[in-house]
């Protein structure tokens, strides 16, 4: 039962109100004064002559009522610098004023006085003692994953192929910049704004303000894109807005300018991944030794978890008996890196798929055939020893993508084109990969997520969950799942706005877990609601509504509550110490084909055709699912070809949409999407998570296509024309 996006007309007609659109009475505009150097000691703050501190609300670190940290996993990141500056654009002082222009002027002219220290900006080398700023080695997290005996297998392998692959930072560019409002209402600090995870914000506010959960209320407003960028950083902005409103005694609105958002908030972790692969003459993988390094930036944020996902995926969707993956994420004096769609796997996937191409070239085997020979068959295991038995035919998936893209005909046509065209070259690239759906390991069990499905006095069924709508379709999919489960019309279902005082904690809106995991809790909540009103599991349709109305005739409570609570699927074992076992409840599988043309005048790359075949369990809503894949692919094309964070002294300097380049409609072809469906018994309606993983494919697929077009091997993204020209000159193509 596909329904149309429920909030779609409100968005199309402009009536949807985002945080900066909301009415707020008698409010002040907030602003943030930031550090200008990557590392140093704060010595003071110099105010301009005209600045009147009676006229402005000012908040310093000393004014923080609770603990000065943005608490998620650790307390290492302060809300406001006390003395140690660890990165550029680190918040030092908060301001608020009735005039937005006055705030902007003050932010521009207030000077942060600091004694600079040499920054540490190398995430690959070991830091000298004076550069240690975290623990005794700057390492946020180390992972060592072993399967079989990789050293012995490499020693005896007939052929060993080595490669080093690098990916750069990526900025999310949600079109709605980050923002929050805060005010005090009935003794509660109320924060509203653009966010993915209201309960992360609640936890951070309680810590920062020294209040119990009952003393704060966090409400998500319609969120104009997140992609991971509104997973952890909103806790910072919410904290700042709350501090300002407490100081001011008036509502405060803190909305970032685009440049501030780009400079100060998190980005995708840069990576350097080294592969040493032992193979036999037929291309069978004998041993994979992989070293993963991620730049964590100045604070821990979510880097250990990102590293974890990167390492678990680093060997690819291939069967190999001997694997060793070592991973490290370390501190540098850069703006902290954080969550971004794919969460470490795009980096891993770029490396393992480019490595597969390197192996194919070395052996003279067709790269598609090499992948066919090594893809995991049911009964074989992943790098963590997870024996895959999901029944998906991964070779058939690959072949379907190859057929849909008509790779054979394209290759033949390219030979002719390349021979006849003096100023262009064409090539096609094929990749295949996997993506673990939902939290890693025991994450879901620890989260203990809950959803309430309540029957209201008016007979309407209301779904109460913390899952946020940020464009990916939560509201529509939850409506569909509840309507289907209860046999009711979609307009009999209401999805409550995520409000921490009103909805239970169903976990953060991350990791492609919303439809699969939380959606399943919606289904369970529907079942429980049916029991609460005295119906059996089979009851569907109008009798459900009748039973809810009847229940209310006999009870005084506002609502009758059905609860869906997480129960781990059977047979899922994961060892967090050794990284062995089922890292995820399920994997999604994909094969992508990119067809490109390289302009030999400019070394610009144009994607001529793109095919994405995805195995996602079950598609719950065709339009939404296709939109997720197409959008993820285009975001991946941007990362592969265009998006580069230009850095100076540890800070991004191209903080505008005019020089941080994301694709326009003219830069991408239609993205051709095909789904394979193999229902996952523990996901809502058979679904697995699909939002993140389309992004993994484009960088390696386009890299492969460029390699085939030019005869050079690009091992680092973005594949900018400047970089390709250098490679072409080295290879004497230009």
């Amino acid at each position: 039962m596909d329904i149309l996006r429920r909030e779609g007309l409100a968005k199309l007609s402009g009536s949807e109100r985002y945080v900066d659109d909301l009415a707020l009475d008698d409010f002040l505009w907030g602003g943030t004064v930031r550090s200008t150097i990557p590392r140093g000691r704060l010595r003071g703050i110099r105010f301009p002559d005209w600045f009147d501190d009676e006229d402005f609300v000012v908040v310093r670190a000393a004014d923080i009522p609770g603990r000065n940290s943005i608490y998620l996993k650790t307390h290492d990141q302060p809300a406001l610098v006390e003395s140690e500056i660890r990165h550029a654009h680190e918040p030092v002082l908060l301001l608020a004023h009735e005039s937005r222009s006055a705030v902007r002027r003050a932010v521009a002219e207030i000077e942060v006085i600091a004694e600079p220290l040499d920054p540490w900006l190398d995430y690959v080398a070991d830091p000298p003692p004076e550069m240690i700023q975290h623990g005794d080695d700057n390492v946020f997290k180390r992972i060592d994953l072993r399967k079989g005996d990789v050293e012995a297998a490499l020693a005896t392998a007939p052929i060993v192929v080595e490669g080093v692959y690098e990916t750069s930072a990526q900025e999310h560019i949600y079109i709605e910049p980050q923002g929050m409002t805060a005010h005090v209402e009935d003794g509660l600090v109320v924060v509203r704004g653009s966010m993915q995870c209201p309960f992360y914000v609640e936890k951070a506010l309680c810590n920062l303000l020294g209040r119990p959960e009952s003393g704060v209320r966090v409400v998500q407003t319609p969120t104009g894109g997140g992609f991971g960028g509104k997973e952890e950083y909103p806790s910072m902005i919410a904290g700042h807005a709350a501090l300002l409103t407490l100081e001011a005694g008036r509502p405060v609105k803190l909305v970032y300018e685009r440049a501030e958002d780009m400079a100060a908030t998190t980005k995708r972790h840069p990576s350097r991944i080294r592969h040493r692969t032992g193979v036999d003459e037929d291309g069978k993988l004998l041993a994979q030794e992989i070293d993963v390094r991620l730049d964590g930036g100045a604070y821990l944020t979510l880097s250990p978890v990102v590293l974890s996902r990167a390492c678990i995926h680093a060997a690819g969707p291939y069967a190999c008996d001997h694997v060793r993956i070592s991973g490290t994420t370390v501190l540098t004096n850069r703006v902290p890196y954080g969550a971004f769609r794919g969460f470490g796997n795009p980096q891993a996937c770029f490396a393992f798929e480019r490595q597969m191409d390197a192996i194919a070239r070395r052996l003279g085997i067709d790269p598609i055939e090499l992948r066919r020979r090594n893809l995991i068959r049911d009964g074989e295991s992943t790098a963590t020893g997870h024996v895959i038995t999901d029944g998906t035919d991964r070779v058939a998936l690959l072949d379907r993508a190859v057929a849909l893209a008509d790779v054979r005909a394209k290759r033949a046509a390219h030979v002719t084109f390349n021979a006849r065209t003096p100023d262009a070259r064409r090539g096609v690239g094929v990749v295949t990969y996997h993506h673990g759906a939902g939290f890693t390991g025991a994450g879901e069990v620890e989260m203990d997520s809950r959803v309430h499905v309540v029957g209201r006095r008016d007979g309407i069924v209301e779904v109460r969950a913390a899952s946020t709508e940020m464009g990916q379709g939560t509201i529509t999919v939850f409506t569909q799942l509840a309507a289907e489960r209860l046999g009711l019309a979609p307009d009999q279902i209401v999805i409550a706005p995520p409000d921490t005082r009103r909805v239970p904690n169903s976990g953060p809106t991350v990791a492609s877990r919303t439809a699969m995991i939380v959606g399943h809790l919606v289904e369970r909540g529907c079942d429980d609601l049916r029991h609460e009103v005295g119906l059996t599991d089979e009851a569907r349709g109008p009798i459900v509504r009748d039973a809810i109305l009847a229940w209310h005739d006999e009870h005084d409570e506002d609502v009758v509550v059905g609860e869906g609570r997480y129960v781990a699927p059977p047979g899922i074992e994961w060892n967090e110490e050794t990284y062995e076992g089922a890292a995820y409840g399920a994997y999604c599988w994909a094969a992508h084909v990119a067809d490109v043309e390289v302009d030999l005048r400019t070394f610009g790359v144009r994607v001529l055709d793109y095919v994405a075949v995805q195995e996602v369990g079950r598609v719950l809503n065709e339009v939404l699912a296709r939109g997720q894949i197409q959008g993820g692919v285009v975001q991946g094309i941007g990362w592969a070809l265009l998006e580069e964070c230009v850095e100076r002294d540890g800070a991004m300097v191209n903080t505008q949409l005019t020089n941080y380049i994301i694709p326009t409609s003219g830069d991408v072809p239609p993205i051709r999407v095909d789904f394979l469906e193999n229902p996952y018994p523990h996901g809502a309606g058979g679904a697995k998570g699909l939002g993140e993983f389309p992004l993994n494919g484009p960088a390696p697929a386009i890299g492969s296509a460029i390699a085939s077009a030019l005869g050079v091997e690009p091992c680092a993204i973005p594949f900018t024309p400047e970089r390709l020209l250098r490679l072409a000159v080295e290879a004497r193509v230009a």
Partner: protein
Amino acid sequence: MIEFRLNGRPIRLDVDPAERLLDLLRYRLDLTGTKEGCAEGECGACTVYLDDLPVDACLVPAYQAHGREVVTVEASDRRQLEPFLRSGATQCGACTPGVVMTAAWIRDHPDLLETHDLRELMAGNLCRCTGYDGIIDGVESALTAHSVDNADAATESNRSASAPVKPTSAAAVSGGGAVHRPSSLSEALELLDAEPDALPIAGGTDLLVHWPTRLDAHDRTYVDLTGVTSLRAHDWTPNALVLGGLTTYWDVIRDTRARAEFPLLVDAGRQVGAVQIQTRGTWAGNIVNASPAADGVPVLMAYDAVVDLASTDGLESIRLDEFFSGYKEMRMSNRQLITAIRLPRRAYDVAWFDKVGSRAAQAITKVGLAVTRRAEPAEDRWRVVANSVAPTVRRCATVERLLGRREAIGSPRVLAEAFARDVAPIDDIRSTRAYRSTVLSRLLYFGLRKRVDFVT
């Protein structure tokens, strides 16, 4: 006090000279459907119509709405939005109102598709969610649905607003500046004479970029030229195409005669920003902004453009290739305005323009090249003009002389050596010196190879 029509209703209010149309709509008229995504005319989330053309409201000073018709997304007919809903044109929704405005404009002007494709027309609206397919599919089905509607003569106006339009609060952006709004050229010139520090403003596509945080700019005095309507039109005389001081890229792009006689103007115009910028940006503004990356200037220079400058002292004319004297320096005083740009009507047997930007639209040029050769034999038939490779847009005299000799050229290297005497590219945030010089000679080499026999 300004007066204009907003979604069909008359509006009268006072505006601050530093207030943008976007601020006025969002923060004082509570029309929050128009979103702010970048404040620099890149994302298109603030697309509205100004006299039936899509523009970025972040680049329009509020006072320029005076006397004009402004339409925002709030005026949309909900029934006509359904194709976009069905196609998946909206996900997070932040870009969506801007997308809807551009898409509805295309739907209402299907003749645009005779010269443009949908992906080019939509390139002024950045979307980070959909990958654009849902949007393009939506416009396509809206075009079909619309023609059916027209057949049914369902012509209910979508210009009737439902939202209230009374001001709600003080300007969100304010400053200590002033603006003069002359209605004739002589009045404008007198104002510039009296206040030499006043800055003329027309399309605002450069002056309003990042306006909210450029606080010093809020305190200046501006002379808004948009009321000097005599400068708007372009004109065809027997010997020349004469662009007015306020002629926009879009005016030229939509002129079929320009497409036939001066195709490089149309090529270059279509590569400036995207539609929302082309409808506002002026050729004269592109010249006086004096950017070495100016996209309009190379093609004008390649067509031997002459610039007419007016002041209270009178009129003078100067060849465009002699107009720039150094980085951001021009042979023009603060008291002068460009009133016309004259292009001789001639036949050319070679003419092309290459822009190398970082993406297909909305790109600042990394290296650009305009080349023409006059059809009638003459000693100096060639014009080779490059941008973004020197402190000014530059005519490349050494290269022109080399081509004039018709000696055999068999690789880009010979051209690179000649260019080295004409241009001096640098490393900057957008590209590198090495890339620029290599690509410049390759553009010329491969372009010539297709067009002349002495290059092989």
